[in-house]
C-alpha cells in the first residue's frame, strides 16, 4: 500500500478532526432546529442542530456515527459556519460543493488514476471568488475517491436542508 496515496484523502487535518471532532455534542432539543440525514450506502446517521438569531448562525452541533471523512467534514463545516450570516453560509456550502465536484471527471485518467492538475487545486487551496473555505479545502482530495463523495457531503447536505428549513419558517 502506498501511504502517500492514502495521504491525498486522509490529510492530517482530516485525521485530527475525525479523532477530535469539534461541536460533536447533543444540544438540547429545545435549542434551535435539527435535521437528520442518512448515508444510504453505509447506514450512517448524522443529526445537525443549528441556532439562528437575526439571520446569523449562533451555534451548531452534530451527533451520530460516521467514517473519518464524514466526521471531519461535519466538524470542519461547523467550524466554518458558526458566526456566519445565512447567506454567507449558503455561499460557503455552494463553494464546498463545487470544490468536491470540480473537474471530477477530467481529474481522472483512463485507468482511474488521477492527473496532476486535479491535485494542484487542492495544493493551492480552494478559492472561489472570495469564499474562503478554510480547513474544509483539505477535503478536495476526496475528488480522487469518488466512492467517498457521499461521506464528504453528508454533513453539508444536512446543513443545506437545515438552512432551507429555518428560512422556510
Amino acid at each position, binding site marked *: *500500500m*502506498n*501511504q502517500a*496515496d*492514502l495521504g491525498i*484523502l*486522509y490529510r492530517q487535518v482530516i*485525521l485530527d478532526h475525525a479523532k477530535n471532532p469539534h461541536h460533536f455534542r447533543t444540544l438540547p432539543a429545545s435549542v434551535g432546529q435539527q435535521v437528520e440525514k442518512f448515508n444510504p*450506502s*453505509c*447506514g*450512517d*446517521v448524522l443529526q445537525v442542530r443549528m441556532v439562528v438569531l437575526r439571520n446569523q448562525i449562533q451555534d451548531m452541533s452534530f451527533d451520530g*456515527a*460516521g*467514517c*473519518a*471523512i464524514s466526521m471531519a467534514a461535519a466538524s470542519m463545516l461547523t467550524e466554518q459556519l458558526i458566526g456566519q450570516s445565512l447567506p454567507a453560509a449558503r455561499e460557503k456550502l455552494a463553494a464546498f460543493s463545487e470544490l468536491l465536484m470540480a473537474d471530477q471527471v477530467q481529474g481522472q485518467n483512463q485507468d482511474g488514476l488521477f492527473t496532476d492538475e486535479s491535485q494542484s487545486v487542492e495544493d493551492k487551496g480552494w478559492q472561489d471568488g472570495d469564499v474562503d473555505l478554510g480547513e474544509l479545502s483539505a477535503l478536495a482530495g476526496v475528488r480522487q*475517491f469518488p*466512492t*467517498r463523495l457521499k*461521506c464528504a457531503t453528508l454533513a453539508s447536505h444536512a446543513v443545506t436542508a437545515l438552512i432551507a428549513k429555518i428560512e422556510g419558517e
Partner: protein
Amino acid sequence: MKTVRDDFTILNRQVNGHPLTYLDGAATSQKPDQVLDQIRAYYDQKNANVHRGVYTLSQEATTSYEGARAKVAAMIGAAAAKNIVFTRSTTESLNWLAQGYGPNHLEAGDEILLTQLEHHSNIVPWQVLGKATGARLRYVSLTDKGEIDLADFKNKLSQKTKIVSFAHVSNVLGSLAPVKEMTTLAHEVGATVIVDGAQGVGHFPIDVLDLNVDFYAFSGHKMLGPTGIGVLYGKTDFLEAMTPVQYGGEMIERVTLEEATFQELPWRFEAGTPNIAGAIGLGAAVDYLNEVGLETIADKEEELMAAALSALAEIPDLTVYGPKDAKNHHGVLSFNLAGVHPHDVATVLDMAGVEVRAGHHCAQPLMDYLGIQSAVRATFAFYNNQEDLDRFVSALRQAREYFV
C-alpha cells in the same frame, strides 16, 4: 500447473498498483472465460429471437436458451425444466412472488414469517404486500451464534402463517439456514416456503426436491453468470397458482381484442423477448461449476475461511460476526475493527488492491440486531488463494496502524 484462476482473465489486472485481490464475490462473482466465450458465441453464431422464427438461426437460439433452462434445473435438482422461470435476479424473483403469488394466498390477519437476517429484497416486497393485504410480518430471531433460532421459529409458526421466506445463506453472517427442518415445520401449518438462495447456489450442491421448498430464488451473477439473469424455481402446482406479473408477447397462447389465454409453464411468466444471452451465459456457468465440482468448491471455500478466521483472530480489536467455525461461513466473513469505520477500512484495503465491501449489506434490520451501523465484508471464493488472504490480512493490519 493450470489452476482455475487462469480461467478468470480479470484476476490478472492491477488495482492501484497492486494485483487485484477480489474479495467481494457475495456482491457479484467474477466470470470465467468459458461463460464470456459462450455469450460471445451466441451473438457471433446464433443471434436471433427465441420461440418465434421457423428459420434455422431462431431454432438454434431457442435450443440454447431452453438448454440453459434444463442445465439450471438439473443443477438444483428440479423435477423438470418447466419448474425454472427465468427472471432478472433474486430481487425480481422475490418481487414476482410477492406480487403474483402473495395476493391470491393472503387475507387480512394472516402472517408472513421472515427472519431477522434477511436481505432487503426479502423484506421490502413483503412489507408492501402486507400493507396491501392487511397481512402481518413477523421475524424469527437469531441465536448468539448468528443462526436462525429454531425454537423461536416454532413459536412464531401458527395456522395464521401463510408464507415463510428466508435466506439459505446469510449474506452477512454466512450462516446456513436449516432449510429442510424449517420447511417440514412450515408445511405442518400449511404455509408456503420460499427460500432466497442468492448466496447458496454455486457454493455447494443443492437439491430443491430433497429440501422440499415450494419456491427457490437466485441470481446468475452471483454464481459466475452474467448480470440481468435470475431464476425462480417453483413446484409445478405452486407455479400454477401464481399469476404472471407482466403481460405481452411470448407469454400468450391466443389473443383477441377482448382477451387472451396464456402459455404453459414456464413461458407464461416470461413476457417479451427474454435475456437470451444472459440465460446462455448462465447455462455456461452451470457447466463450469459442474466441471470444477460443487463439492470441491465448498471444500476450497471452507479451507480459505478457516485460514482467514485464524489470521483475523490474531488482529487485536477485531470482531467477527456470525459463527466462529469455518464450516458455517460459506465464504462470507463480516467484521469490524474497533475505532475504524468500515468505509475507511475499505478505502485503505482498496489502495492495496484488496476489494471488499463496506456498508450495511442491504440488511439494515440485521445491523440493528447486531447493534452496528455497518461492517466490512470479505468473501472467499474458490478462485481466491492464499496470496489473496495474505494481502488482505496485511492491508488490514496497515489500516489498523493508520487509524488506531
